[in-house]
């Protein structure tokens, strides 16, 4: 399967759902579980599937993404023929009339034409899993399908704007927001490259702005479709609350182990910081702690990012602290999310609720 499938991570159509966390970065580069960013999981799953050329449609606010993805080897995309192409908005064609994410498909069409394989696996960043799409690709090719949608069947369907599949036998006949429908669509699909090229032309000629909605969803009956259900654990992000709940769910030991170690470890940018130092007064329970952290205070059910300093007597509960934050002595934090470089000065107390965590934007000082 190597070199038969091109990976594409399309960040352009994604909304910046995560309030303060997506003020200055795209959804794909939101930090997660201490040292990762959400896009890492899409790359890891592609890498697990033997995909070694990946294009990223970067949309806007892509500075942190460029830095994060700058060494492909960190993500297991290794070897001379392997590449991660980060493709920011670059509207170079003066005759171009494309709209929406078609602008990306049109102006970066070299990505597809230069790739020798015949299929493209497209993913967003707001659905994460540590899985392997190889079987889905195999079925897609074996059945000579135009499009195969990657989905999962769940016991209790979650509420929220996650699309669900309507199927008839092995064909997909529609998408729905019916909250009772347990057949969740992950947003990942495998498409024949020739079909993709035709859709691009169709959308542009008809002034359509959305590759997926106008080109695929509204024209489903024209294609030979199928679906593949994955069984790996999944998480969907569409609000600060889901971000918070997904993080907290991964504090269960077995779940954390399965998700991050799985068949293959989740890959991310390799950076260097010393091991975590737990000082004499530290008291840490049921938490994920990244490297470079110094703990003198109390941490419970929390996720602590790189190089965070936690002072004596501080209490951090049910919270997510991003990299480089400083929590001074005797601070009390509960149900909060602190973005990077936040400083909470001595003795302050901040509390959100479990349903509505309190979010502090990057570089805030309180």
């Amino acid at each position, binding site marked *: 399967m190597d070199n038969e499938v091109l990976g594409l991570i399309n960040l352009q159509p994604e909304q910046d759902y995560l309030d303060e966390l997506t003020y200055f970065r795209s959804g794909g580069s939101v930090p997660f579980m*201490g040292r990762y960013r959400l896009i890492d999981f899409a790359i890891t799953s592609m890498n697990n599937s033997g995909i070694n050329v990946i294009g990223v449609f970067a949309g806007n606010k892509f500075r942190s993404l460029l830095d994060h993805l700058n060494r492909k080897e960190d993500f297991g995309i290794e070897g001379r023929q392997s590449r991660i192409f980060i493709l920011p908005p670059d509207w170079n064609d003066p005759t171009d009339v494309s709209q929406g994410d078609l602008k990306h498909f049109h102006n970066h069409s070299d990505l597809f034409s230069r790739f020798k394989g015949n299929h493209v696996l497209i993913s967003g960043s707001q659905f994460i899993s540590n899985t392997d799409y190889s079987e889905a690709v195999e079925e897609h090719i074996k059945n000579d399908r135009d499009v195969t949608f990657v989905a999962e069947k769940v016991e209790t369907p979650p509420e929220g704007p996650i699309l669900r599949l309507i199927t008839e036998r092995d064909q997909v006949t529609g998408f729905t927001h019916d909250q009772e429908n347990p057949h969740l669509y992950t947003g990942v699909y495998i498409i024949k490259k020739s079909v993709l090229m035709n859709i691009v032309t169709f959308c542009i000629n008809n002034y359509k702005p959305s590759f997926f909605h106008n080109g695929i969803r509204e024209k489903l009956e024209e294609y030979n479709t199928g679906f593949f259900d994955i069984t790996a654990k999944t998480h969907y992000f569409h609000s600060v609350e889901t971000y918070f709940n997904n993080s907290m769910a991964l504090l269960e030991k077995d779940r954390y182990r399965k998700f991050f170690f799985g068949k293959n470890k989740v890959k991310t940018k390799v950076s260097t910081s010393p*091991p975590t*130092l737990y000082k004499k007064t530290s008291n840490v*329970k049921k*938490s994920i702690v990244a490297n470079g952290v110094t703990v003198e205070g109390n941490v419970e059910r929390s996720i602590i990012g790189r190089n965070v300093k936690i002072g004596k007597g501080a209490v951090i509960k049910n919270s997510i602290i991003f990299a480089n934050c400083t929590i001074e002595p005797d601070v009390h934090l509960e149900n909060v999310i602190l973005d990077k470089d936040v400083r909470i000065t001595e003795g302050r107390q901040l509390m959100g609720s479990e349903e509505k965590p309190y979010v502090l934007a990057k570089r805030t000082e309180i």
Partner: protein
Amino acid sequence: MTSNTVAMLLAGGKGTRLGELTKDIAKPAVPFGGKYRIIDFTMSNLANSGISTVGVLVQYSPLMLNKHIGIGKPWGLDRQYGGVSVLSPHSNREGSAWFSGTADAIVKNLHFIDQYEPDNLIVLSGDHIYQMDYTKMLEFHQANDADATISAIEVPWEDASRFGILNTNEDMSIYEFDEKPEEPKNNMASMGVYIFKWETIRPYLLEDEKNEDSEHDFGKDIIPMMLSDEKRLFAYNFEGYWKDVGTIKSYWEANMDLLKDDFQTLLMSKEWPTYPNEENRPPEYIGETSEITNSLISPGSFIEGKIDNSILFIGVETGEGTSIKDSIILPDAVIGEGVRLERVIVTSGVEVPDGAEILAEDEEPIVISHDTLNDYLPKGGNHNG
């Protein structure tokens, strides 16, 4: 100034006194401080000093060391000019031979050094824990127009007879190099860091190589020969942390030093970072029953139980009801439930079974390896296979 300097890093040491720790790997490759290896301190010193032409001399069990150094990426030594070269014993038309001494190892790689036509050669050892700016020593070396400069550190008087002692005049010029003296005249010990003027040292090395009675050692042979020729030798006074991790006990102590407030810069310094060859592992999971005090924990770990005054390396797992004190747990070791460990070193990948109690009775830490584990477990029972 650093561009005309070639560094030769001696990393072939067997480290016999480290026992089980160096059974399969060279001493410089022994894991240290949670996610590092001993050689990382010297490699980081080179990186931070801007010395970018480095030969790493390997000999004893070099597999792990070769893989670790690679093309020098963690230390920014993957370069188009210079960079790092791993130099192993080799054969040529004159024959083939192992490195038989520190000076001999350099002579056998003269062609490596010659290709850079350096002004200065800096000779380092890969088995010391310290943070040193070699450019300051180079400045001192050049200001004195020295033929050789040897860095020295003050050691406690009672230990002085274990070191090579530098006896100096007031201007720090050396008049005597006293190798492990019974009655030391002072307590300035050589750290095994030498800077030589290349054009001066080159003929000495070739001369010494011909002498069959020589041990081909810098301290024992080359330096005394230069002194008797009245060459300009200076001692460079280094102040700071320096530790030779030659024995199990000093290895244990040097690790424990990392937990002391005074020595936090060894790993935490932003100005003089220590660079490991980092792996992609998830942040550590600290479990419901954990009580961790005064300890270092590394990525990929799953921690339960009581951890006090200990250093846990990457990928370590500890079970509930376990108590680990004053101990060092090397990568990917698994400590079961209800285990009690005190003043022990568990080597890489060892699985300590549930309920085991292993406590060192005296100062000397116990090393638990795949081979020695059974010696410390109760005999009989189900483990008689």
